[in-house]
């Protein structure tokens, strides 16, 4: 069976060039960067080179990059670490309601354990945060605002320069989670105007187990993993050298390929969306129709539950993701789909496609072949669908 894999945001193979760069660091170049001596592989310098590569992708300086074990850890370090380092200013943070769990739950942790107040900013039906609304939410006690560059669930790209400017004016730190956006759209910390920015290795074609946080020079952070003097005392634990080398290479490739990759993904994605909307009735294209990641298409198919749909498709070699409540371990509908105002029943029909350079026109054909019958089949015995039809909805 041929495979049409459209869940690259969840996982993607490590690029061969990346793995190749990593391999020596498991073996001959196994040294610890904290060692006094050099085992001949200049491991300390290698680490700094990776910092420079990641910095280059972001228009930042190498010493502004901290390596972490994941995007989630970087988000935690940004939100908790920066908030706790600036307690004197106050105990209020603002995050958008559609942030990744690592941001949402970090904010809740500050509420529960550090007497913070956390504001969860609403978004419009396209998932956009309004800068004016952000301005109104600021208080003299606000320490930090965290709003993602783009959503991994609905693809919507935020107007970060405008949002960050609101914060800068008010002297409030601004963090952005760029995990979903990195490698898909250009990111420059100066143009964005952000103080902190999160990256994840695997989202860039690098290995799992590594992430990075950009922090504006001299910005204070309370470490979240206490330890020795690794990462200049900002993050303890022996450095994951092979992982960091992989992230460095992935960042380097991403910077080179960005100009070609964006348009390729966007054109593929546009054909996917057009084809799906044509072939299946009663489907909602979620997120912003234009201001969205080039490699991202997300839908809700009414009357159908997402986990069942994903399983049916996977049987045909088509792999996609869903934000359905049934598919989540806690059986809660994705907060993102709630936040854009979808009813729980509609949100159940969520299906998310995330594309990569490796996707081809043949993959699209597989979707067009297998998605419409899968939806039709589940609808054929869906009570919700039958009620909708009986009530005079569009015919199947």
């Amino acid at each position, binding site marked *: 069976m041929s495979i049409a894999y459209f869940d690259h945001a969840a996982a993607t193979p490590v690029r061969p060039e990346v793995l190749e760069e990593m391999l020596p660091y498991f073996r001959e170049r196994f040294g610890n960067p904290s060692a006094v001596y050099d085992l001949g592989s200049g491991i300390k310098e290698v680490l700094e080179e990776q910092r420079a590569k990641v910095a280059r992708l972001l228009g930042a300086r190498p010493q502004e990059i901290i390596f972490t074990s994941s995007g989630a850890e970087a988000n935690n370090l940004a939100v908790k670490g920066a908030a706790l380092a600036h307690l004197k200013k106050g105990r209020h943070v603002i995050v958008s309601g559609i942030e990744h769990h690592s941001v949402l739950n970090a904010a809740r942790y500050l509420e529960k354990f550090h007497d913070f107040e956390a504001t969860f900013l609403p978004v419009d039906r396209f998932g956009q945060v309004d800068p004016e609304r952000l301005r109104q939410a600021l208080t003299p006690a606000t320490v930090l605002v965290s709003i993602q560059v783009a959503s991994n669930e609905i693809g919507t790209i935020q107007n970060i320069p405008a949002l960050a400017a609101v914060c800068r004016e008010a002297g409030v730190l601004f963090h952005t989670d760029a995990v979903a956006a990195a490698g898909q759209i250009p990111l420059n910390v100066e143009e964005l105007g952000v103080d902190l920015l999160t990256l994840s290795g695997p989202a860039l074609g690098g290995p799992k187990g590594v992430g990075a946080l950009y922090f504006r020079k001299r910005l204070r952070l309370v470490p979240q993993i206490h330890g020795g003097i690794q990462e200049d005392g900002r993050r303890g634990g022996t450095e994951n050298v092979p992982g960091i080398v992989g992230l460095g290479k992935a960042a380097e490739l991403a910077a080179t390929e960005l100009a070609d990759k964006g348009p390729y993904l966007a054109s593929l994605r546009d054909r996917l969306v057009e084809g799906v909307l044509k072939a299946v009735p009663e489907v909602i294209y979620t997120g912003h129709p234009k201001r969205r990641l080039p490699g991202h298409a997300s839908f809700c198919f009414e*009357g159908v*539950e997402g986990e069942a749909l994903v*399983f049916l498709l996977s049987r045909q070699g088509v792999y996609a993701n869903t934000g359905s409540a*049934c598919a989540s371990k806690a*059986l809660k509908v994705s907060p993102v789909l709630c936040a854009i105002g979808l009813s729980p029943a509609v949100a159940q029909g969520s299906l998310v496609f995330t594309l990569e350079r490796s996707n081809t026109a043949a993959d699209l054909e597989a979707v067009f072949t297998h998605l419409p019958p899968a939806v039709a089949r589940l609808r054929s*015995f869906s009570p919700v669908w039958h009620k909708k039809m009986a009530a005079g909805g569009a015919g199947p």
Partner: protein
Amino acid sequence: MYSPVVMEHFNNPRNAGVMEDPDGVGEVGNPACGDMMTFFIKVKDDRIVDIKFQTFGCVAAIAVSSMVSEMAKGKTLDEAARITNKDVAEVLGGLPKNKLHCSNLGADALARAIADYRRKHGTAH
């Protein structure tokens, strides 16, 4: 994650669809995730002679519906009413912990269909 029996019933659900003129209908909604399950039964001589279901829900919910319909078919109403959630999960070869509640849906909807039949036909105990 799912047992082979679950996958088999999900891939080839038995008795899925609508029934014209059912003798009893039972419908349950799952508040946890907005899902829904409906059972339709035809009864003859106190026995379930035909059964259909409609399900809006996950892989487990669909497999549960299918399995419950198979288990109920041909049984007397009393026998069918005694099918428990645990029975269903067991014959399905187990369900992931967070999916056990889906088996409730199936047995509950069937029980409601039986109750509906009895109410309509004045045979409630």
